[in-house]
């Protein structure tokens, strides 16, 4: 048993990371905890009698091996804080989870991520907004993090999947359980286009007090948190609070001031969260995102993603804005091709149309 194994063993007993930290401090190393006698364990003063008995009862290599087998059987993977592939952002928060269980995969590009959270009981407006923002952000290559709950969370995941982007769901229960059950199909899809993550060991039920803890992981994984709809006492506000403590940006979508479903988000805005009307409001706030999109654009304009004719047109209007007839004449392309390519360049954000059918390169 090395300290990684002992850490996993402790987690499997559903001992939270805070206590694990204290135990490590108390014993000096995980190894001495494993080696400790029953008396020593019974003398620990900061854990309950129940946990003491559990520690004594399961301090057994067979139990541990059996547990690892069960994890493998459920096709989940374990990442501990000692591992290199532990999410970078998550490591930097206060009280990071020591052990996480993963279905699917985490990739390096998931570091550029935004959490979209909101109430389970959401209005049509909230669901629409969640899906729209998830879709638009995901299509820019941003990973959407949320909690797989009903309502806003579900829509956020779905939006990301519609845009064929990546999405991460953070659970408040063991990875072998699907909660809520109706999201089974979504659960499967997320595995293939992102990851399902939890810090809870196998078999842990979705107990109400798990969710606030889960929320710190949601915000911890992300660069910013967008609260779509939240009532005055919503768990999403906890996520927002966590995000602030972790130094993440907090965004909120405004709602009708009479709507109870938007009271929380409106309150967040009042308290200084950034009001969001479109995804640019999010992008311009986060330097990493801004840079990323900028480089994406520069790459495009530097002809990596452009066709032959597209390059011709970009080169043609480099100096000053030109009328489409002029572009057609100078590039030697037919007017119908020019018109069609200009629309596509416009959509890629490379050129801009001015009144009078003149076109110029966008400055960025």
């Amino acid at each position, binding site marked *: 048993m090395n300290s990684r194994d002992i850490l996993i063993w402790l987690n499997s007993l559903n001992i939270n990371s805070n206590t694990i930290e204290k135990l490590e401090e108390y014993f000096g190393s995980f190894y001495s905890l494993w080696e400790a006698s029953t008396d020593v364990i019974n003398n620990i003063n900061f854990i309950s009698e129940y946990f003491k008995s559990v520690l004594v009862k399961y301090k057994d290599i067979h139990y541990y091996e059996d547990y690892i087998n069960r994890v493998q059987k459920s096709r989940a993977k374990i990442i501990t804080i000692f591992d290199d592939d532990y999410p970078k952002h998550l490591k930097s928060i206060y009280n990071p989870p020591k052990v996480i269980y993963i279905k699917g995969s985490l990739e390096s590009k998931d570091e550029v991520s935004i959490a979209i959270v909101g109430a389970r009981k959401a209005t049509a407006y909230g669901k629409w907004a969640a899906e729209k923002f998830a879709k638009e952000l995901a299509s820019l290559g941003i990973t959407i993090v949320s909690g797989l709950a009903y309502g806003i969370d579900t829509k956020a995941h779905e939006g990301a999947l519609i845009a064929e982007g990546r999405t991460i769901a953070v659970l408040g229960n063991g990875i072998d359980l699907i909660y809520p059950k109706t999201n089974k199909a979504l659960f499967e899809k997320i595995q293939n286009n992102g990851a399902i993550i939890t810090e809870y060991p196998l078999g842990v039920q979705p107990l109400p007090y798990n969710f606030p803890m889960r929320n710190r992981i949601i915000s911890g994984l992300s660069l910013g948190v967008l609260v779509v709809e939240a009532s005055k006492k919503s768990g999403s506000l906890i996520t927002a609070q966590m995000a602030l403590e972790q130094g993440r940006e907090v965004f909120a979508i405004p709602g009708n001031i009479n709507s109870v479903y938007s009271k929380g988000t409106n309150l967040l805005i009042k308290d200084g969260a950034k009001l969001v009307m479109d995804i640019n409001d999010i992008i311009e706030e986060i330097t990493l995102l801004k840079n990323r999109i900028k480089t994406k654009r520069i790459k495009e304009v530097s002809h990596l993603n452009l066709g032959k004719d597209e390059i011709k047109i970009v080169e043609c209007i480099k100096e000053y804005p030109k009328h489409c007839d002029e572009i057609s004449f100078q590039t030697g392309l037919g007017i119908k091709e020019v018109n069609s390519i200009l*629309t596509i360049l416009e959509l890629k954000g490379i050129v801009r149309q001015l009144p009078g*059918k003149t076109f110029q390169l966008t400055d960025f």
Partner: protein
Amino acid sequence: MKYIEDINVKTKGRLGVMLSKVKTCVLHGLNGYIVEVETDVSRGMPTFSIVGLPDTSIREAKERVRTAIKNSGFEFPLSRITINLAPASLKKEGSQLDLSIAVGILLATGIIRDRDLSKVSFIGELSLDGNINKIAGALPLVISLKDKGIEKIIVPYENKDECSVVENIDVIPVRNLYELVMYLNDEIDIEPWKTDLSSLFKNDDELYADFSDIKGQESLKRAMEVAAAGGHNILLIGPPGSGKTMIARRLPSILPELTFDESLEITKIYSVAGLLKDNFLITKRPFRAPHHTISGASLVGGGRIPKPGEVSLAHHGVLFLDELPEFQKNVLEVLRQPMEDGYVTISRVNASFTYPAKFMFVASMNPCPCGYYGDPTHECTCSEREINRYLGKISGPLLDRIDIHIEVTPIDYKDLGSNTMSETSESIRKRVNEARKIQIDRYYKEKIFCNAQLTSKDINKYCKLDKECVKLMEEAFNNLGLSARAYSKILKLARTIADLDKKESIQIQHLAEAIQYRSLDRKFWR
């Protein structure tokens, strides 16, 4: 004159068949209705009365008929003459009834030999000296008579060319009453008049101004080509002197050739409006460009007995409204119904008249009151408010019926340093014809002929988009600030562009090009 003396001697003092029936026709809009002229000549106090709802021009026929018969040398009966125009309930108007009244009297008095006239009809106005004058609306009369089973029609000599374009009916042109009597009594023979129809449709090349006169303006020409190919209405937006009117006038030259039926329809309208001059069959697509002071009534048609207005005169052709915002708002609004339905119905107390009005709508306007918004060489002096108000003069519903908006920028072609010849109308028309043919084949089950007529239901059926195109559409709406009403227009245009490209399905480049033809949907305009 020996003949007349003989006939007068023969019929002196006796009456012929006493009662005669002769067929003629009156117009109601573009449709003709057969009117039977029943003439009774009987003993009694010499009077001459016409019953059966005649209007003033027919009541006056009494004097013309009496004098014309007398001046042709025949005896006018000193008897009691009663004329009934059956059906008696229908209001009748038009001087073309003169001839049939005269024939009825001559038949009743026996000057014209009694014979079977059930398949013969007479139209023509009499002059006091017995000559038969030209009438307006002869063509629709002849067409309706043919449809009602008449086999032979007697027409004024001057209307012979116009009438002879109708096939399967014998058109007998007569110059005067005397000649007609001779003909009906088999003293002379008049050959039915025939026209060589094919010669009318030849040598069309010189009919219109040509596209090759326009140097440069490639994007504008392309938009025109797309408009012509799909029958789309088009709005040209540009500063003064950018060539909007010049190119609009050339639009008919790239429209598909008129078919004979279309040509007949147009000629009917012009015939009713009395606008047929030397050209007895209109073989050229009409181009109507009314001035912006026009009233609503003259645009859609009006008058106590409604005559076709500009929209009907532009049937199968082009209606061009130059300086669209200068037209009175209520005048523009009356355009909405004909643009939608392809016909216009004008209601009057006793009847309503329907004239066809399928036209391509072309309008031009300045982008702003001063005219120079977006012009590369002039500064626009208008405020944003003024520009918005100017554009607001064109109502949403009218704008909804215009598929293409294209900005016209004056470009000095010499600046581009080229002297290559521009494409001629003929070669553009060839592509347009091919694209139209594809559309006609595709829509043979529907009641439509071109992409512009697609309804929202048809659009779902015929303008299917693949996944890539749907994505492009979505991006375009999110990023370019297109308005919702642009959606179906863009699909229709993309369909036309795909047809020009001879492609079965709409592809991404077609869609992308179509988006360029919706200038007014852009953010900087609204």
